[in-house]
């Protein structure tokens, strides 16, 4: 048994020695992934940065290098509003998706009747395309005669809520729709991590007299932390990049009250045909995603040190 198990390890060890012995093999193994990363990730990224330093528009043949796109975007009075919307949208969405995802994960762990259906519902919400999610929530929020929520409110004698036309409500409505869409992913991830926790730890804690809250605080949360951090990074990046659901729901309005950086990038590029300014917004998005990720990585490192 010991001999059989050591066989593959021995081969792996020999392989590592081979790599050490002849480093050109490393390049060969990595070449396909390097080509894919360069073509589909690095090149578009560098091209977006190049475009941001031009006056490029869709259909403009003579593109000039200039700082005009940066000047236009950075002095735009709408930029602070768009950045504020982005921060609010990301923070609330991430917080709610993580918290509700954890609750869903814990609920699934209870193995109560109907949990299979809950899992299916969570996954369905996650796989629904953003545009469909936006349209669905539009039908729910609408103040028109078919708006489900407002008609229900009116049925009980309450006033209609201007979900889509009041700037504050519109942002709240957008966050709720996005939380609904992303909680499934977060819940499934955390459910997977919960299932990996050794039940003996809970048994030992119970024998020592720990209550449910103590067990959650002392065992579940620390064991979930690595997954929570990964979840945090993934949810943040996907939220920063969300534009399709918002576009279908509010088109970024009323005014620009639900326009976030990703949607502003889309609007500049495909509605106003201004590639240069769209690229500047894309660069801002890259910077914001990098900042969020760097903060989380630092938190993870400190956590590991602690």
């Amino acid at each position, binding site marked *: 048994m010991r001999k059989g198990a050591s066989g593959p390890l021995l081969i792996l060890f020999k392989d590592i020695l081979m790599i050490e012995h002849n480093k050109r093999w490393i390049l060969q193994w990595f070449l396909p992934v390097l080509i894919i990363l360069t073509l589909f990730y690095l090149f578009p990224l560098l091209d977006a940065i190049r475009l941001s330093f031009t*006056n490029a*528009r*869709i*259909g*403009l*043949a003579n593109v000039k290098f*200039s700082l*005009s*796109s940066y000047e*236009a975007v950075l002095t*735009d*009075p709408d930029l602070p509003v768009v950045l504020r919307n982005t921060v609010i949208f990301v923070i609330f969405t991430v917080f709610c998706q993580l918290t509700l995802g954890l609750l869903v994960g814990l609920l699934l762990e209870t193995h109560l009747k109907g949990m299979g259906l809950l899992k299916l519902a969570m996954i369905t919400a996650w796989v629904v395309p953003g545009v469909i999610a936006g349209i669905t929530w539009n039908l729910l929020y*609408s*103040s*028109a*005669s*078919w708006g489900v929520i407002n008609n229900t409110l009116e049925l009980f004698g309450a006033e209609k809520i*201007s979900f*889509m*036309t*009041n*700037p504050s409500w519109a942002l709240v409505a957008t966050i709720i729709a996005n939380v609904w869409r992303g909680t499934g992913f977060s819940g499934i991830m955390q459910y997977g991590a919960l299932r990996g926790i050794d039940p003996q730890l809970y048994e030992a804690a119970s024998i020592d007299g720990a209550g449910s809250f103590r067990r959650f605080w002392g065992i579940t949360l620390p064991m979930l932390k690595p997954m929570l951090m990964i979840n945090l990074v993934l949810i943040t990046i996907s939220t920063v990049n969300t534009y399709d659901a918002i576009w279908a729901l*509010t*088109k*970024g*309005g*009323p*005014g*620009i*009250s639900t326009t976030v950086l990703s949607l502003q990038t889309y*609007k500049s590029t*495909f*509605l*106003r*045909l*201004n590639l*240069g*300014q769209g690229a500047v917004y894309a660069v801002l998005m890259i910077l914001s995603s990098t900042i969020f990720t760097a903060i989380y990585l630092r938190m993870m490192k400190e956590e590991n040190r602690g």
Partner: protein
Amino acid sequence: MKKFMSLISMLLLGGVLFGAGQQDAVPVDVDPVASATEAGTPGAPVQLRALIGSWNTMASSVESRKEYYEQAILAWAEEHPDVYVEIEGIPGGQTAQAMTKLITAAIAGNPHDFANIDSQWVGNFHEAGVLSPIDDYLTQEDKDQFFDFTKIVTVRDGKQYNLWAETGLLLYYYNTDYVKVAPRTWDDVFALNDTLKAEGIDKDAFLTQGKGAAAAFCLLPSYWAQGAVLFDAADNYRPVFGEGKNRDAMINSFSFIKELVDAGAMPSEMIGYDHNELEAEAKADNVASFIAGSWKQGGLDPEKWEYTSLPSMDGSKSNIYGGWTFGFLARDKKKLEESVNFVNAVYTSRDAMADRLPRHGYIPVRKDVFSAEAFKSPFYEVIYKELEVGRARPATSMYPEVESLIEEAMGKILSGSDVAETVDEMYSKVVRSYNAKN
């Protein structure tokens, strides 16, 4: 070795000559085809590539439209056995993506030979210099049949580059149970609101649209009716809507919307409404009058709903025209000629429009089409007059930016922003983009 090389050379030469001979030959015993992706005789010497809205091809889900395209394509193919068209469809709702792809391919030198181009995108294609003039393949008599508004878009520097295929415009719809006389001026609209309120009729007096492109579509006729313009066509389409009387007209147009909301004639929810929402509100009997596309007329109860031209500040008439054109990108003369022939036969000739447009509910852009039986009705009498008073969206690449900013401005103004400041901010953004472009 020498003999072997000679043999190879002869075979190659023979092959080339054979191939060349084959290229000019019209295929014998090959039946013409008509489908969503093909038109004409497969293997024909003139091979064309076309990009057409899938709703305007045999990919349409409506049987009567499919029937038309099949019969029109086969009739054209009988007369042009030497031409084959490979058709690529534009999926519904993907105009921006399709136009972007087309113009990028055209600049790179690999465009389709002809394409459906949204009328608001034609300016981009003009500015990119990728369209070919088609005057040699049209008669003056034919050109004169197109309404004047089309020429602002399809003609540049005296040359015609596009054929406008169909359009739609705006109408003012009113419920005769609540509106006895259609308002002609903005004052009349406010008076109607007062009357409804006095009579205790709890309906929105007047609804217009604020969602997406519909916001600009519904605002601009009231702006143009004041004699204002967005761009100076004589000065390289320089934006001028923030200057002098144009600025005043823009402020007036936005203020009218704001005052309607303030007066309770229209809910602020209008910024989430487009044509479909308004039609639904009308059918739910929540509204006394509204502005929507001409294509909505068929869906309203004719016993209750009448239609007329749009009310304006002082009663002057204006309208706005959307719709699609065909642009020609081929450089080869034969291909260009055959492209124009195909478009004329299937889409833009008098007979083609008279047969095709009623099946779609589109409005014709040729005057002679209105003498066809299908267009002899009181509805089309109104439409004909409307086609003479309005404007097409300006043929400049700056227009989409204005359109997008009008929608944003409407939301800002109804959320409490100052009208004049919002208009000035919008103008300075467009001017900055214009200066950067030039």
